Protein backbone atom coordinates (compact mmCIF):
# COMPACT_ATOMS: atom_id res chain seq x y z
CA UNK A 1 0.00 0.00 0.00
CA UNK A 2 2.61 2.48 1.02
CA UNK A 3 4.74 1.51 -1.97
CA UNK A 4 1.89 2.31 -4.22
CA UNK A 5 1.57 5.67 -2.60
CA UNK A 6 5.12 6.58 -3.29
CA UNK A 7 4.68 5.55 -6.89
CA UNK A 8 2.26 8.36 -7.51
CA UNK A 9 3.82 10.94 -9.73
CA UNK A 10 3.70 14.57 -8.81
CA UNK A 11 1.28 15.10 -11.66
CA UNK A 12 -1.02 12.46 -10.26
CA UNK A 13 -0.79 13.97 -6.84
CA UNK A 14 -2.00 17.30 -8.14
CA UNK A 15 -4.78 15.68 -10.08
CA UNK A 16 -5.82 13.63 -7.06
CA UNK A 17 -6.09 16.78 -5.04
CA UNK A 18 -8.12 18.47 -7.73
CA UNK A 19 -10.39 15.46 -8.20
CA UNK A 20 -11.11 15.42 -4.53
CA UNK A 21 -12.61 18.84 -4.87
CA UNK A 22 -15.42 17.52 -6.91
CA UNK A 23 -17.52 14.75 -5.50
CA UNK A 24 -20.93 13.98 -6.73
CA UNK A 25 -23.08 11.95 -4.48
CA UNK A 26 -25.87 9.80 -5.69
CA UNK A 27 -29.17 11.22 -4.63
CA UNK A 28 -30.58 7.96 -3.35
CA UNK A 29 -32.38 7.94 -0.04
CA UNK A 30 -31.90 4.34 0.95
CA UNK A 31 -32.86 4.79 4.57
CA UNK A 32 -33.89 7.20 7.22
CA UNK A 33 -30.47 8.86 7.46
CA UNK A 34 -31.40 10.58 4.23
CA UNK A 35 -33.46 13.01 6.25
CA UNK A 36 -30.25 14.73 7.30
CA UNK A 37 -29.05 15.07 3.72
CA UNK A 38 -31.32 17.95 2.71
CA UNK A 39 -30.05 20.10 5.60
CA UNK A 40 -26.53 19.12 4.62
CA UNK A 41 -27.10 20.05 1.02
CA UNK A 42 -29.03 23.22 1.58
CA UNK A 43 -28.53 26.57 3.18
CA UNK A 44 -27.75 25.66 6.75
CA UNK A 45 -24.73 23.48 6.15
CA UNK A 46 -24.17 23.80 2.41
CA UNK A 47 -21.95 20.92 1.47
CA UNK A 48 -21.50 22.38 -1.99
CA UNK A 49 -18.79 24.47 -0.38
CA UNK A 50 -16.60 21.42 -0.78
CA UNK A 51 -17.69 20.69 -4.30
CA UNK A 52 -20.13 18.01 -3.24
CA UNK A 53 -23.28 17.99 -5.21
CA UNK A 54 -26.16 15.59 -5.41
CA UNK A 55 -26.51 13.79 -8.70
CA UNK A 56 -29.50 11.92 -9.84
CA UNK A 57 -28.01 9.19 -11.93
CA UNK A 58 -25.48 6.61 -10.86
CA UNK A 59 -23.51 7.03 -14.05
CA UNK A 60 -22.37 10.43 -12.91
CA UNK A 61 -22.08 9.84 -9.21
CA UNK A 62 -18.90 9.24 -7.27
CA UNK A 63 -20.24 8.62 -3.81
CA UNK A 64 -22.97 6.25 -2.84
CA UNK A 65 -24.39 7.11 0.52
CA UNK A 66 -26.03 4.23 2.26
CA UNK A 67 -28.14 6.27 4.58
CA UNK A 68 -28.86 3.71 7.20
CA UNK A 69 -30.58 0.38 7.06
CA UNK A 70 -30.92 -1.49 3.83
CA UNK A 71 -33.89 -3.68 3.31
CA UNK A 72 -33.23 -6.64 1.08
CA UNK A 73 -35.42 -5.08 -1.54
CA UNK A 74 -33.40 -1.90 -1.51
CA UNK A 75 -30.13 -3.78 -1.38
CA UNK A 76 -30.86 -5.28 -4.75
CA UNK A 77 -31.35 -1.81 -6.22
CA UNK A 78 -28.33 -0.51 -4.43
CA UNK A 79 -26.11 -3.20 -5.87
CA UNK A 80 -27.36 -2.48 -9.35
CA UNK A 81 -26.80 1.17 -8.80
CA UNK A 82 -23.38 0.62 -7.35
CA UNK A 83 -22.28 -1.46 -10.27
CA UNK A 84 -23.49 1.21 -12.66
CA UNK A 85 -21.38 3.84 -11.04
CA UNK A 86 -18.12 4.60 -12.70
CA UNK A 87 -14.95 3.88 -10.81
CA UNK A 88 -13.43 5.28 -8.77
CA UNK A 89 -16.49 5.29 -6.55
CA UNK A 90 -16.91 5.28 -2.85
CA UNK A 91 -19.49 3.98 -0.46
CA UNK A 92 -20.11 5.82 2.76
CA UNK A 93 -22.04 3.99 5.42
CA UNK A 94 -24.30 6.12 7.54
CA UNK A 95 -24.78 5.29 11.12
CA UNK A 96 -25.22 2.17 13.13
CA UNK A 97 -27.37 0.22 10.73
CA UNK A 98 -24.67 -0.14 8.13
CA UNK A 99 -22.14 -1.39 10.64
CA UNK A 100 -23.85 -4.09 12.61
CA UNK A 101 -27.52 -3.87 11.91
CA UNK A 102 -28.29 -0.96 14.18
CA UNK A 103 -31.66 -0.96 15.81
CA UNK A 104 -32.96 -3.33 13.18
CA UNK A 105 -30.58 -6.02 14.31
CA UNK A 106 -33.36 -8.51 14.74
CA UNK A 107 -35.40 -7.50 11.76
CA UNK A 108 -36.02 -10.08 9.11
CA UNK A 109 -36.09 -7.46 6.39
CA UNK A 110 -32.82 -5.59 6.65
CA UNK A 111 -29.25 -6.67 6.03
CA UNK A 112 -26.88 -6.10 8.89
CA UNK A 113 -23.34 -5.59 7.67
CA UNK A 114 -22.95 -3.46 4.61
CA UNK A 115 -19.37 -4.49 4.02
CA UNK A 116 -20.51 -7.98 3.17
CA UNK A 117 -22.12 -6.70 0.01
CA UNK A 118 -19.91 -3.89 -1.18
CA UNK A 119 -16.66 -2.31 -0.08
CA UNK A 120 -17.20 0.60 2.26
CA UNK A 121 -14.81 3.51 2.32
CA UNK A 122 -15.96 5.20 5.50
CA UNK A 123 -18.46 4.74 8.25
CA UNK A 124 -20.05 7.56 10.17
CA UNK A 125 -21.23 6.92 13.69
CA UNK A 126 -24.65 8.12 14.61
CA UNK A 127 -28.27 7.24 14.41
CA UNK A 128 -28.54 9.18 12.31
CA UNK A 129 -25.35 11.22 11.82
CA UNK A 130 -25.79 14.94 12.08
CA UNK A 131 -25.04 17.18 9.11
CA UNK A 132 -21.82 18.24 10.81
CA UNK A 133 -20.73 14.63 10.97
CA UNK A 134 -21.69 14.07 7.38
CA UNK A 135 -19.64 17.04 6.27
CA UNK A 136 -16.73 15.86 8.35
CA UNK A 137 -16.95 12.51 6.69
CA UNK A 138 -16.85 14.15 3.30
CA UNK A 139 -13.81 16.10 4.32
CA UNK A 140 -12.20 12.93 5.49
CA UNK A 141 -13.02 11.31 2.17
CA UNK A 142 -11.60 14.27 0.27
CA UNK A 143 -8.41 14.01 2.29
CA UNK A 144 -8.15 10.34 1.60
CA UNK A 145 -8.66 10.88 -2.11
CA UNK A 146 -6.06 13.62 -2.08
CA UNK A 147 -3.63 11.29 -0.38
CA UNK A 148 -4.47 8.54 -2.83
CA UNK A 149 -5.67 6.26 -0.08
CA UNK A 150 -9.30 5.97 -0.99
CA UNK A 151 -9.01 2.72 -2.84
CA UNK A 152 -11.72 0.64 -1.31
CA UNK A 153 -13.56 0.51 -4.63
CA UNK A 154 -10.86 -1.69 -6.09
CA UNK A 155 -11.82 -4.28 -3.57
CA UNK A 156 -15.05 -4.88 -5.38
CA UNK A 157 -13.22 -5.85 -8.52
CA UNK A 158 -10.70 -7.84 -6.58
CA UNK A 159 -13.07 -9.76 -4.31
CA UNK A 160 -16.04 -9.77 -6.56
CA UNK A 161 -16.75 -13.43 -5.88
CA UNK A 162 -16.97 -12.85 -2.16
CA UNK A 163 -19.40 -9.99 -2.52
CA UNK A 164 -21.45 -11.77 -5.10
CA UNK A 165 -21.70 -14.85 -2.91
CA UNK A 166 -23.00 -12.82 -0.01
CA UNK A 167 -25.41 -10.96 -2.23
CA UNK A 168 -26.78 -14.13 -3.63
CA UNK A 169 -27.14 -15.57 -0.17
CA UNK A 170 -29.42 -12.73 0.77
CA UNK A 171 -31.43 -12.83 -2.42
CA UNK A 172 -31.69 -16.56 -2.29
CA UNK A 173 -30.47 -17.02 -5.84
CA UNK A 174 -28.30 -15.64 -8.59
CA UNK A 175 -28.93 -12.10 -9.67
CA UNK A 176 -28.27 -10.54 -13.00
CA UNK A 177 -26.98 -7.02 -12.76
CA UNK A 178 -25.93 -6.70 -16.41
CA UNK A 179 -22.70 -5.13 -15.38
CA UNK A 180 -19.82 -7.41 -16.11
CA UNK A 181 -17.55 -6.50 -13.26
CA UNK A 182 -14.96 -9.09 -14.10
CA UNK A 183 -14.49 -8.00 -17.68
CA UNK A 184 -14.47 -4.39 -16.56
CA UNK A 185 -11.54 -5.28 -14.40
CA UNK A 186 -9.71 -6.58 -17.44
CA UNK A 187 -10.82 -3.83 -19.80
CA UNK A 188 -9.86 -0.99 -17.55
CA UNK A 189 -6.85 -2.73 -16.03
CA UNK A 190 -7.85 -2.15 -12.45
CA UNK A 191 -5.19 -3.33 -10.12
CA UNK A 192 -5.68 -4.55 -6.67
CA UNK A 193 -5.71 -2.09 -3.82
CA UNK A 194 -3.08 -4.23 -2.25
CA UNK A 195 -5.39 -5.49 0.46
Amino acid at each position, binding site marked *: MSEKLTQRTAWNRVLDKLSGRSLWMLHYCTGCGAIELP*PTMTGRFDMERFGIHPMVTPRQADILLITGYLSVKTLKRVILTYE*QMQSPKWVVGFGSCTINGGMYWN*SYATVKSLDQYMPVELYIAGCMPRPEAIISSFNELIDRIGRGEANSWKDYYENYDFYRKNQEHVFGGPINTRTDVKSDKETFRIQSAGK
Partner: protein
Amino acid sequence: MSEVLERINRSFDEPEDEHDEVREYTLFIGPNHPGIEGNFALKLSLEGDTIVRAKTDGGYLHRGFEKLMEERLFMQNIAIVCRICVPDPDPNEENYARAVEAIAGIEVPERAKWIRVLVLELSRIASHLFTFGGHAGTIGLYTMPNWSIADRDRILDLFEELTGGRVYHIYNMPGGVRRDFPDGFERRVHEVMDYIESRLPDYDDLFFNNAILRKRAEGIGVLTSDQAIRWGATGPNLRAVGIPADLRRDDTYEVYDKLEFDIPTLTGGDALDRLLVRRKEIEESIRIVRQVVDNIPSGKVWNKQPNPLKWRVPAGDAYVRTESSKGEYAYYMVSDGGQRPYRVHVRGASTTHGVHILENLLVGTRIEDASQVMFSLDACPPEVDR
Protein backbone atom coordinates in the same frame (compact mmCIF):
# COMPACT_ATOMS: atom_id res chain seq x y z
CA MET B 1 -32.84 6.55 -12.23
CA SER B 2 -35.07 4.94 -14.63
CA GLU B 3 -32.65 2.79 -16.50
CA VAL B 4 -31.65 1.05 -13.37
CA LEU B 5 -35.17 0.29 -12.53
CA GLU B 6 -36.01 -0.75 -15.97
CA ARG B 7 -33.32 -3.32 -15.78
CA ILE B 8 -34.31 -4.44 -12.39
CA ASN B 9 -37.82 -4.91 -13.34
CA ARG B 10 -36.95 -6.71 -16.49
CA SER B 11 -34.61 -9.03 -14.76
CA PHE B 12 -36.51 -9.73 -11.57
CA ASP B 13 -39.98 -8.57 -11.36
CA GLU B 14 -42.18 -9.21 -14.28
CA PRO B 15 -42.16 -10.19 -17.91
CA GLU B 16 -42.12 -7.65 -20.68
CA ASP B 17 -44.96 -5.26 -20.68
CA GLU B 18 -47.86 -6.63 -22.67
CA HIS B 19 -48.94 -3.23 -23.87
CA ASP B 20 -46.02 -2.83 -26.21
CA GLU B 21 -48.11 -3.05 -29.31
CA VAL B 22 -50.24 -0.08 -28.39
CA ARG B 23 -48.75 3.33 -28.08
CA GLU B 24 -48.05 2.89 -24.44
CA TYR B 25 -44.70 2.58 -22.85
CA THR B 26 -43.62 2.07 -19.30
CA LEU B 27 -41.49 4.38 -17.27
CA PHE B 28 -40.15 3.67 -13.87
CA ILE B 29 -39.63 6.50 -11.49
CA GLY B 30 -37.62 5.68 -8.46
CA PRO B 31 -36.58 4.35 -6.10
CA ASN B 32 -33.49 6.34 -6.91
CA HIS B 33 -35.03 9.48 -8.24
CA PRO B 34 -35.09 13.01 -6.87
CA GLY B 35 -38.71 13.45 -7.77
CA ILE B 36 -39.75 10.79 -5.30
CA GLU B 37 -40.25 11.48 -1.67
CA GLY B 38 -37.92 9.00 -0.07
CA ASN B 39 -37.24 5.50 -1.25
CA PHE B 40 -40.27 4.64 -3.26
CA ALA B 41 -41.05 3.84 -6.84
CA LEU B 42 -43.71 4.48 -9.40
CA LYS B 43 -44.38 2.33 -12.41
CA LEU B 44 -46.07 4.50 -14.95
CA SER B 45 -47.67 3.51 -18.21
CA LEU B 46 -47.49 6.43 -20.53
CA GLU B 47 -49.15 7.41 -23.71
CA GLY B 48 -47.01 10.19 -25.02
CA ASP B 49 -46.53 12.34 -21.99
CA THR B 50 -49.72 11.36 -20.28
CA ILE B 51 -49.98 8.73 -17.61
CA VAL B 52 -52.63 6.17 -18.33
CA ARG B 53 -51.90 3.77 -15.52
CA ALA B 54 -49.86 4.11 -12.40
CA LYS B 55 -48.68 1.55 -9.92
CA THR B 56 -46.80 2.35 -6.79
CA ASP B 57 -44.04 0.11 -5.60
CA GLY B 58 -43.16 0.37 -1.94
CA GLY B 59 -41.47 -1.77 0.60
CA TYR B 60 -38.00 -0.40 0.07
CA LEU B 61 -38.07 0.98 3.56
CA HIS B 62 -39.67 -2.02 5.18
CA ARG B 63 -38.08 -2.91 8.46
CA GLY B 64 -40.86 -4.86 10.05
CA PHE B 65 -41.51 -2.38 12.82
CA GLU B 66 -44.70 -4.01 13.92
CA LYS B 67 -42.83 -7.26 14.38
CA LEU B 68 -39.91 -5.62 16.09
CA MET B 69 -42.21 -3.94 18.55
CA GLU B 70 -43.67 -7.27 19.53
CA GLU B 71 -40.24 -8.38 20.59
CA ARG B 72 -39.33 -5.35 22.64
CA LEU B 73 -40.37 -4.24 26.08
CA PHE B 74 -42.95 -1.52 26.33
CA MET B 75 -40.40 1.06 27.33
CA GLN B 76 -37.81 -0.03 24.80
CA ASN B 77 -40.24 0.65 22.02
CA ILE B 78 -40.17 4.37 22.56
CA ALA B 79 -36.75 4.35 20.94
CA ILE B 80 -37.91 2.72 17.74
CA VAL B 81 -41.38 4.07 17.07
CA CYS B 82 -40.13 7.46 15.98
CA ARG B 83 -38.30 5.85 13.09
CA ILE B 84 -41.50 4.93 11.35
CA CYS B 85 -42.03 8.34 9.83
CA VAL B 86 -38.80 10.12 9.33
CA PRO B 87 -39.78 13.72 8.46
CA ASP B 88 -42.45 13.87 11.15
CA PRO B 89 -41.52 11.43 13.91
CA ASP B 90 -43.40 12.86 16.84
CA PRO B 91 -46.90 11.66 16.05
CA ASN B 92 -45.45 8.17 16.34
CA GLU B 93 -44.14 8.78 19.80
CA GLU B 94 -47.36 10.50 20.71
CA ASN B 95 -49.47 7.64 19.44
CA TYR B 96 -47.38 5.01 21.09
CA ALA B 97 -47.38 6.75 24.42
CA ARG B 98 -51.07 7.44 24.26
CA ALA B 99 -51.90 3.89 23.25
CA VAL B 100 -50.03 2.48 26.25
CA GLU B 101 -51.62 5.05 28.49
CA ALA B 102 -55.06 4.18 27.21
CA ILE B 103 -54.59 0.47 27.80
CA ALA B 104 -52.89 0.76 31.15
CA GLY B 105 -54.97 3.68 32.33
CA ILE B 106 -52.01 5.91 33.01
CA GLU B 107 -52.54 9.53 33.93
CA VAL B 108 -50.33 12.13 32.32
CA PRO B 109 -49.33 15.28 34.18
CA GLU B 110 -50.91 18.42 32.82
CA ARG B 111 -47.58 20.02 31.99
CA ALA B 112 -46.51 17.02 29.97
CA LYS B 113 -49.66 17.28 27.90
CA TRP B 114 -48.84 20.86 27.01
CA ILE B 115 -45.28 19.95 26.17
CA ARG B 116 -46.53 17.18 23.92
CA VAL B 117 -48.67 19.64 22.03
CA LEU B 118 -45.69 21.91 21.67
CA VAL B 119 -43.56 19.10 20.29
CA LEU B 120 -46.26 17.96 17.91
CA GLU B 121 -46.82 21.42 16.53
CA LEU B 122 -43.14 22.15 16.13
CA SER B 123 -42.82 18.89 14.33
CA ARG B 124 -45.71 19.82 12.09
CA ILE B 125 -44.05 23.09 11.14
CA ALA B 126 -40.76 21.33 10.49
CA SER B 127 -42.41 18.70 8.38
CA HIS B 128 -44.36 21.23 6.33
CA LEU B 129 -41.25 23.29 5.71
CA PHE B 130 -39.56 20.14 4.54
CA THR B 131 -42.41 19.37 2.19
CA PHE B 132 -42.32 22.88 0.75
CA GLY B 133 -38.69 22.33 -0.08
CA GLY B 134 -39.50 19.05 -1.73
CA HIS B 135 -42.42 20.42 -3.67
CA ALA B 136 -40.42 23.40 -4.87
CA GLY B 137 -37.71 21.00 -5.94
CA THR B 138 -40.09 19.13 -8.18
CA ILE B 139 -40.74 22.26 -10.19
CA GLY B 140 -37.08 23.12 -10.19
CA LEU B 141 -37.20 26.04 -7.81
CA TYR B 142 -34.14 25.12 -5.82
CA THR B 143 -33.96 28.33 -3.89
CA MET B 144 -36.97 27.33 -1.86
CA PRO B 145 -35.55 24.12 -0.38
CA ASN B 146 -32.42 26.01 0.46
CA TRP B 147 -34.46 28.44 2.45
CA SER B 148 -37.14 26.33 3.99
CA ILE B 149 -34.94 23.45 4.98
CA ALA B 150 -32.41 25.80 6.50
CA ASP B 151 -35.24 27.42 8.44
CA ARG B 152 -36.54 24.02 9.48
CA ASP B 153 -33.16 23.52 11.08
CA ARG B 154 -34.01 26.25 13.55
CA ILE B 155 -36.83 24.09 14.79
CA LEU B 156 -34.55 21.09 14.92
CA ASP B 157 -32.28 23.19 17.11
CA LEU B 158 -35.18 23.67 19.46
CA PHE B 159 -35.81 19.97 19.48
CA GLU B 160 -32.19 19.31 20.16
CA GLU B 161 -32.29 21.61 23.10
CA LEU B 162 -35.47 20.17 24.51
CA THR B 163 -35.00 16.49 23.82
CA GLY B 164 -31.33 15.92 23.11
CA GLY B 165 -31.90 14.73 19.57
CA ARG B 166 -32.18 16.62 16.34
CA VAL B 167 -34.40 14.40 14.30
CA TYR B 168 -35.36 11.51 16.53
CA HIS B 169 -36.46 12.85 19.82
CA ILE B 170 -37.38 9.76 21.81
CA TYR B 171 -39.08 12.16 24.09
CA ASN B 172 -42.67 11.16 24.57
CA MET B 173 -43.11 8.16 26.70
CA PRO B 174 -45.94 6.50 28.49
CA GLY B 175 -46.69 8.65 31.49
CA GLY B 176 -45.42 11.95 30.19
CA VAL B 177 -42.29 13.28 28.60
CA ARG B 178 -38.68 12.62 29.36
CA ARG B 179 -37.37 16.02 30.33
CA ASP B 180 -38.68 19.39 31.35
CA PHE B 181 -37.88 22.60 29.50
CA PRO B 182 -34.30 23.76 29.77
CA ASP B 183 -33.73 27.25 31.11
CA GLY B 184 -34.88 30.02 28.86
CA PHE B 185 -36.44 27.61 26.42
CA GLU B 186 -39.69 29.53 26.23
CA ARG B 187 -37.86 32.61 25.05
CA ARG B 188 -36.04 30.76 22.35
CA VAL B 189 -39.23 29.15 21.12
CA HIS B 190 -40.67 32.61 20.73
CA GLU B 191 -37.59 33.75 18.88
CA VAL B 192 -37.74 30.88 16.44
CA MET B 193 -41.47 31.35 15.93
CA ASP B 194 -40.92 35.02 15.22
CA TYR B 195 -38.23 34.10 12.80
CA ILE B 196 -40.33 31.54 10.96
CA GLU B 197 -43.21 33.97 10.83
CA SER B 198 -41.00 36.67 9.41
CA ARG B 199 -39.89 34.27 6.74
CA LEU B 200 -43.37 33.42 5.55
CA PRO B 201 -43.73 36.58 3.40
CA ASP B 202 -40.45 35.70 1.76
CA TYR B 203 -41.76 32.25 0.99
CA ASP B 204 -44.89 33.82 -0.45
CA ASP B 205 -42.87 36.04 -2.71
CA LEU B 206 -40.60 33.33 -3.89
CA PHE B 207 -42.78 30.30 -3.95
CA PHE B 208 -46.44 30.48 -3.13
CA ASN B 209 -47.05 33.52 -5.29
CA ASN B 210 -44.67 32.43 -7.95
CA ALA B 211 -46.28 32.53 -11.36
CA ILE B 212 -44.64 29.29 -12.37
CA LEU B 213 -45.97 27.46 -9.34
CA ARG B 214 -49.45 28.77 -10.03
CA LYS B 215 -49.12 27.79 -13.62
CA ARG B 216 -47.90 24.33 -12.83
CA ALA B 217 -49.71 23.33 -9.69
CA GLU B 218 -53.13 24.67 -10.40
CA GLY B 219 -55.47 22.01 -11.64
CA ILE B 220 -52.96 19.26 -11.12
CA GLY B 221 -54.04 16.12 -9.33
CA VAL B 222 -57.50 17.39 -8.57
CA LEU B 223 -59.31 15.54 -5.83
CA THR B 224 -63.00 16.18 -5.52
CA SER B 225 -64.56 16.20 -2.10
CA ASP B 226 -66.47 13.07 -2.94
CA GLN B 227 -63.35 11.28 -4.05
CA ALA B 228 -61.43 12.49 -1.06
CA ILE B 229 -63.84 10.83 1.30
CA ARG B 230 -64.28 7.74 -0.77
CA TRP B 231 -60.56 7.21 -1.17
CA GLY B 232 -59.84 7.88 2.46
CA ALA B 233 -57.96 11.14 2.26
CA THR B 234 -57.18 12.73 5.58
CA GLY B 235 -55.38 15.70 7.00
CA PRO B 236 -54.39 18.64 4.81
CA ASN B 237 -55.32 16.71 1.70
CA LEU B 238 -58.87 16.45 2.94
CA ARG B 239 -58.96 20.04 4.10
CA ALA B 240 -57.86 21.13 0.64
CA VAL B 241 -61.19 19.94 -0.72
CA GLY B 242 -63.12 22.03 1.74
CA ILE B 243 -63.86 19.57 4.51
CA PRO B 244 -62.74 21.03 7.83
CA ALA B 245 -61.87 17.70 9.42
CA ASP B 246 -59.06 17.76 11.90
CA LEU B 247 -58.45 15.18 14.57
CA ARG B 248 -57.11 17.83 16.87
CA ARG B 249 -60.66 19.12 17.00
CA ASP B 250 -62.80 16.13 16.21
CA ASP B 251 -60.98 13.45 18.15
CA THR B 252 -59.28 15.79 20.50
CA TYR B 253 -56.31 14.68 22.52
CA GLU B 254 -53.87 16.18 24.99
CA VAL B 255 -54.90 19.81 25.46
CA TYR B 256 -56.00 20.79 22.00
CA ASP B 257 -59.47 21.48 23.33
CA LYS B 258 -58.04 24.25 25.45
CA LEU B 259 -56.24 25.96 22.61
CA GLU B 260 -57.47 28.38 20.04
CA PHE B 261 -56.70 27.67 16.47
CA ASP B 262 -58.42 27.64 13.12
CA ILE B 263 -58.63 24.84 10.67
CA PRO B 264 -57.72 26.32 7.31
CA THR B 265 -59.56 24.89 4.34
CA LEU B 266 -59.52 25.52 0.63
CA THR B 267 -61.85 24.16 -1.95
CA GLY B 268 -59.80 23.51 -5.05
CA GLY B 269 -58.50 20.10 -4.15
CA ASP B 270 -55.57 20.44 -6.52
CA ALA B 271 -51.87 20.33 -5.82
CA LEU B 272 -51.73 24.07 -5.27
CA ASP B 273 -54.50 24.09 -2.70
CA ARG B 274 -52.98 21.22 -0.82
CA LEU B 275 -49.80 23.19 -0.67
CA LEU B 276 -51.51 26.37 0.41
CA VAL B 277 -53.43 24.59 3.15
CA ARG B 278 -50.13 23.50 4.58
CA ARG B 279 -48.82 27.01 4.25
CA LYS B 280 -51.75 28.26 6.31
CA GLU B 281 -51.37 25.49 8.83
CA ILE B 282 -47.94 26.75 9.64
CA GLU B 283 -49.46 30.01 10.79
CA GLU B 284 -51.94 28.14 12.96
CA SER B 285 -49.22 25.98 14.40
CA ILE B 286 -47.19 29.01 15.27
CA ARG B 287 -50.25 30.34 17.02
CA ILE B 288 -50.64 27.14 18.98
CA VAL B 289 -46.99 27.02 19.91
CA ARG B 290 -47.17 30.55 21.25
CA GLN B 291 -50.23 29.75 23.30
CA VAL B 292 -48.56 26.69 24.72
CA VAL B 293 -45.42 28.49 25.68
CA ASP B 294 -47.34 31.34 27.26
CA ASN B 295 -49.89 29.31 29.14
CA ILE B 296 -48.11 26.14 30.09
CA PRO B 297 -48.86 25.15 33.68
CA SER B 298 -46.04 24.22 35.98
CA GLY B 299 -45.64 20.85 37.57
CA LYS B 300 -43.99 17.58 36.93
CA VAL B 301 -43.61 16.17 33.49
CA TRP B 302 -43.71 12.46 34.13
CA ASN B 303 -45.81 10.26 36.29
CA LYS B 304 -43.68 7.52 37.70
CA GLN B 305 -44.08 4.24 35.91
CA PRO B 306 -42.86 0.86 37.07
CA ASN B 307 -39.34 -0.30 36.40
CA PRO B 308 -39.28 -0.69 32.62
CA LEU B 309 -37.64 -4.09 32.87
CA LYS B 310 -40.53 -5.39 34.90
CA TRP B 311 -43.53 -3.69 33.50
CA ARG B 312 -46.62 -5.42 32.36
CA VAL B 313 -49.41 -3.58 30.69
CA PRO B 314 -52.80 -5.08 31.41
CA ALA B 315 -54.56 -6.88 28.63
CA GLY B 316 -56.62 -4.70 26.37
CA ASP B 317 -56.55 -2.79 23.16
CA ALA B 318 -56.71 0.79 22.05
CA TYR B 319 -56.96 2.68 18.82
CA VAL B 320 -55.36 6.08 19.10
CA ARG B 321 -55.13 8.70 16.45
CA THR B 322 -53.07 11.80 15.98
CA GLU B 323 -53.29 14.50 13.38
CA SER B 324 -49.84 14.38 11.88
CA SER B 325 -48.59 16.82 9.31
CA LYS B 326 -49.58 14.30 6.69
CA GLY B 327 -52.98 13.33 7.97
CA GLU B 328 -54.52 10.79 10.26
CA TYR B 329 -51.89 8.78 12.04
CA ALA B 330 -53.19 5.91 14.07
CA TYR B 331 -51.92 3.05 16.19
CA TYR B 332 -53.91 0.03 17.09
CA MET B 333 -52.25 -1.59 20.05
CA VAL B 334 -53.15 -4.86 21.67
CA SER B 335 -51.66 -6.01 24.92
CA ASP B 336 -52.12 -9.51 26.25
CA GLY B 337 -51.02 -8.51 29.71
CA GLY B 338 -47.37 -9.21 29.04
CA GLN B 339 -44.22 -7.19 29.06
CA ARG B 340 -44.32 -6.59 25.35
CA PRO B 341 -47.06 -5.32 23.10
CA TYR B 342 -48.91 -8.23 21.60
CA ARG B 343 -49.59 -6.39 18.42
CA VAL B 344 -49.16 -2.87 17.20
CA HIS B 345 -50.70 -1.88 13.93
CA VAL B 346 -49.36 1.33 12.50
CA ARG B 347 -51.73 3.14 10.24
CA GLY B 348 -49.56 5.73 8.61
CA ALA B 349 -51.23 8.75 7.13
CA SER B 350 -49.69 7.90 3.80
CA THR B 351 -51.10 4.40 3.53
CA THR B 352 -54.04 5.87 1.72
CA HIS B 353 -52.35 8.92 0.22
CA GLY B 354 -49.24 7.20 -0.97
CA VAL B 355 -50.82 4.18 -2.56
CA HIS B 356 -54.44 4.34 -3.49
CA ILE B 357 -54.95 8.06 -3.93
CA LEU B 358 -51.61 8.57 -5.61
CA GLU B 359 -52.25 5.78 -8.07
CA ASN B 360 -55.62 7.27 -8.93
CA LEU B 361 -54.53 10.88 -9.12
CA LEU B 362 -51.61 10.12 -11.36
CA VAL B 363 -53.87 8.83 -14.09
CA GLY B 364 -54.37 11.56 -16.59
CA THR B 365 -51.61 13.78 -15.33
CA ARG B 366 -48.47 14.23 -17.30
CA ILE B 367 -45.14 12.73 -16.57
CA GLU B 368 -43.61 16.02 -15.45
CA ASP B 369 -46.30 16.46 -12.83
CA ALA B 370 -46.03 13.00 -11.35
CA SER B 371 -43.63 13.98 -8.64
CA GLN B 372 -45.52 17.17 -7.98
CA VAL B 373 -48.63 15.16 -7.28
CA MET B 374 -46.72 12.92 -4.93
CA PHE B 375 -45.23 15.82 -3.02
CA SER B 376 -48.49 17.68 -2.89
CA LEU B 377 -50.07 14.64 -1.23
CA ASP B 378 -47.05 14.63 1.07
CA ALA B 379 -46.91 10.87 0.84
CA CYS B 380 -44.21 9.56 3.11
CA PRO B 381 -43.06 6.07 2.07
CA PRO B 382 -41.72 4.86 5.43
CA GLU B 383 -45.23 5.18 6.80
CA VAL B 384 -46.46 2.86 4.12
CA ASP B 385 -43.60 0.41 4.42
CA ARG B 386 -43.10 0.47 8.18
